[in-house]
């Protein structure tokens, strides 16, 4: 399997709003900590080293 880079969210605006809602009312450090937990949770859900490596590359090359 390889990293899905085509649109994969059924309702992109809803999903995006859910992400913002998860951060609502948080200070910046709290938000960063939440993001760290989210990354770990999603990494485990993906569970595929090759897919993760592609994701790390994409993230690093687009900053």
């Amino acid at each position, binding site marked *: 399997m390889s990293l899905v880079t085509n649109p994969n969210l059924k309702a992109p605006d809803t999903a995006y709003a859910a992400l913002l809602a998860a951060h609502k009312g948080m200070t910046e450090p709290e938000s*960063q*900590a939440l993001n*760290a*937990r989210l*990354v*770990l*949770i999603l990494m*485990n859900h993906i569970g595929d080293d090759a897919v993760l490596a592609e994701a790390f590359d994409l993230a690093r090359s687009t900053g």
Partner: protein
Amino acid sequence: MAYDYRPFPYTAPPGLTAPEPRHKVVIVGAGPIGLALAIDLAQYGVPSVVLDDNNVVSVGSRAICWSKRSLEILDRLGVGAKCVDKGVIWKVGRTLHRDAEVWNFDLQPEPGHKMPAFVNLQQYYVEEYLVTRAMEFPDLVDLRWKNKLSSLTQTDHVTLTVETPDGPYSLEADHLVACDGARSDIRGMMGLDFDGELFEERFLIADIEMQGDFPSERRFWFQPNFHPGQSALLHKQPDNIYRIDLQLGWDADPEAERQPDRVIPRIEKAIGHRDFRLDWVSVYTFQCRRLARFVHGRVIFCGDSAHIVSPFGARGGNGGLQDVDALGWRLAAVAKGHDPAILNAYDRERQHGADENLLNSSRTTRFMSPAPGAERMFRDAVLTLAAKAPFARPLVNSGRLSAPCTYPSIGADDPQLPTLSRPGSVAPDAPLPQGWLIDQLGREPILLAIGQPAPKVAGLKTLELAPTPQLQTRYLGSAPSALYLIRPDQIIAARWLSATPAVISEAAKSIWKDRT
């Protein structure tokens, strides 16, 4: 009770009065590694001189966690039973965040091994037992206390100057083995330096004596309430001695921190009372570094002189004993006239072992002592998640405990056979109708024939075994029978479902070659 340090007697060495004949092997450092090597060589009939600048065993517990593999090696050297009898046997480790357990591991979930997963035993006891054992070879192990190496030069042999209470003398040796520890003088004399990472983190380490009913487990705390923001480790040792490691932070002043008026209140907070006696205190900084090569002509580095790791995986002392295991039989062969090129195989294999230890140790250190920023954020995120979400628990890294590596590119393999006994691995132990398999292996190559008659190979010892449930799981898997060729250090050299005597003979010969 406190350990009774009895000095070993110094006797004036013969070299003070007349030149000594050139020795086969001189070992510098009578710590666990140097002593183990001298005994290993003696068991092969090879004499050695062991120099040590001191005349007592190690002060403080230092290396305390001896792994199953180390116990098997110590057993082959004649002190395994003593270490197990005296030591505190344990196999469960618990990791806590604040005061709640987030992760635990069982290092020996299945029975059927002669040796336990780990025993905790102070380094001074291991050294004492090894010295006593070494003295059973008065013609082969020449222990010289208060003999300090002061210079060395090498040509086609090594020439040493040694200082004693009676003045200096000179020694010659075919090979010099540097077992002189993390601060190796020999490394300095040869202008060699470590490559790798030095971590800016300080730990206080203390032995305390107290009456307690603490279970025989390893306990590790991240950010405990008794030591906010830092980490702590507790191990039980024999004689009611407990070992406590407390993280201090990179900016701690080591001199101030080791003073009893600082140490005692910290420990009191950790254990909840003041009913203990302080036995030993030290402060250390992490390092994860090694020499680029361990064999430099006729000088061989072994143990901490060659590589140092942070202490949280018990990979220092155990890694050093695995060095001895890989070196002893080869150096003995060289001392008896074998091509010294075989020592390159020691160098290559133990670099591989050291790299695995360094990798594990560095990762643990990163987790325990994360750099500010992203490292720290992810570490804290793992700990926070671990209390609730099972997936995060294996990410919690309080030390990945020493296990022997599998050496790469060894001999023939058959992928149908189990992974755990693939060539390059330590031959797994198993109970036999009488005794243990591990006791039948080592010292010389042996061919194990499990469930089939052993092909006859000139000069090769063989052992035929009927399959048992453990042999089936550990050596056969789904196969009905197999052949295993095992090296003198109990490492599997090659294995086959079946093989001709010619093929086996060729594989047995290649045990003695450097195959780079």
